[in-house]
């Protein structure tokens, strides 16, 4: 994952395993303390070498990922599902950066495990449509050199890493809001409609939280999901004679209308707990 010996040696000697142990025990504050100790050491790392600085950035992304991961699970445990969504998105953004800037775009097995887990978790949330703004901007300024980031004079590319810093285009002059649209693939998935944590929208998360409380699963043992839809009994189904008029109001005979709707298909996600996966 890392390119330089110095930072790699640091990563190998400062294990994240205590964090996983505490997550497994649902002791979030202890996990956060573990993280703070490593963070303190990382903040002391300095260099003028571009590769080392990029590796330090990568380490900070790993820490940022774990920080969001701990808080996300804590929020789920505390039944604050709406808040936990933002931390889940923070985790996924950190993972994207780690993927992008790691050597050969490959991260560690542990991070692969969490990537899979988080993508499963994402499906339990009710958010499918997001707000997206279309705006007109006169100038995007480079966050590193201050020049017009779209000009050839600026040598930085948006989203690339330079000595530990990602180049960002800062919108300097938004001249008009062109439109607001609802999209399935927004840049930022945090722009969502807020739902009550106790509402039915969070049914999947409420189930997950119950499993956490009853120790049926932990943040370390949620391993996979089976997404096979299942049939359930249709509560509104009324058995009629074949030639009777259907009750749904279609004016058709029952045999030509709702006769086959005794069972309806519903989306079903079965969470798979795997106790044997060893993170320590």
């Amino acid at each position: 994952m890392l390119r330089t010996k110095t930072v790699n040696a640091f990563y190998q000697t400062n294990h994240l395993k205590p964090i996983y142990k505490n997550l497994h025990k649902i002791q979030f504050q202890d996990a956060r303390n573990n993280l703070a100790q490593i963070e303190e050491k990382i903040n002391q790392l300095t260099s003028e070498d571009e590769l080392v600085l990029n590796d330090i950035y990568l380490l900070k992304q790993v820490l940022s990922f774990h920080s969001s991961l701990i808080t996300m699970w804590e929020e789920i445990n505390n039944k604050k599902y709406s808040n936990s969504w933002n931390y889940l998105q923070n985790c996924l953004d950190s993972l994207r950066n780690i993927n992008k800037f790691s050597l050969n775009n490959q991260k560690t097995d542990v991070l692969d495990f969490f990537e899979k887990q988080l993508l499963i978790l994402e499906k339990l949330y009710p958010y499918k449509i997001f707000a997206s703004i279309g705006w007109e901007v006169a100038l995007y300024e480079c966050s590193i050199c201050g020049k017009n980031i779209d000009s050839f004079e600026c040598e930085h590319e948006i989203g690339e890493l330079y000595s530990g810093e990602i180049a960002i285009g800062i919108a300097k002059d938004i001249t008009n809001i062109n439109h607001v649209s609802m999209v399935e693939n927004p840049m930022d998935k945090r722009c969502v409609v807020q739902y009550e944590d106790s509402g039915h929208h969070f049914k999947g998360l409420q189930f997950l939280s119950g499993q956490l409380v009853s120790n049926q699963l932990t943040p370390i043992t949620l391993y996979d999901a089976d997404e096979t839809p299942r049939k359930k009994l249709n509560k509104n189904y009324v058995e009629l004679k074949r030639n009777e008029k259907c009750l749904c109001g279609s004016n058709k005979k029952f045999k030509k209308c709702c006769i086959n709707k005794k069972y309806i298909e519903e989306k079903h996600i079965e969470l798979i707990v795997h106790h044997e996966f060893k993170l320590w």
Partner: protein
Amino acid sequence: MIGHFKRYLGRYTSEITVARAEHAPPLEYIRNYMKEPTVEIINIPSSEFEKFHSESEGIKIVPEFYNGTDEKVLQRDSGTFAKWIHKNHTEIEIAYDPDVKKISLHNNEYWLPLVYLASDVSAQIYIGLVINFIYDKLKGVLSGEKDKAKINFSFEYKDGDTHKRFDYSGSVEGLEKFNKIDINKFLKN
């Protein structure tokens, strides 16, 4: 063949979608769509294009009106794309004004601009550039997201007095395969 593809109007509004939603088009749909891409007759090319095509080389990124804008604007990723070509394909001339106002959609897509192609840049070369650019930008995506990456691609051309438009919508790999066949022959048919 590429060499025969002398006169055309190249119009590309390409975008990739790292589709995070669960509604990616079924593979069967993409396959069918690939077999029968849409081709339709288009308008007569502008004098601006004719001038660029006959007098210049390479690629020109062209501003457009978009959804009621007062002036012609460029898609947000125009600069990123132009700089990517400028850096990775120095052999290709790229004409582009970085000071034109940008329209930014703030969704998870690379939205590329309308371009004019001069006679030294074939459709195949340009499609190859777009595919390489996309693969470069897909490096950070999470597992599963890469499979859902989708590309929409429109291409208008002029052959003698005939003007046609080719639309593609499907996977990046699909476009890559499509690019290997004789697009010239396809459009003439």
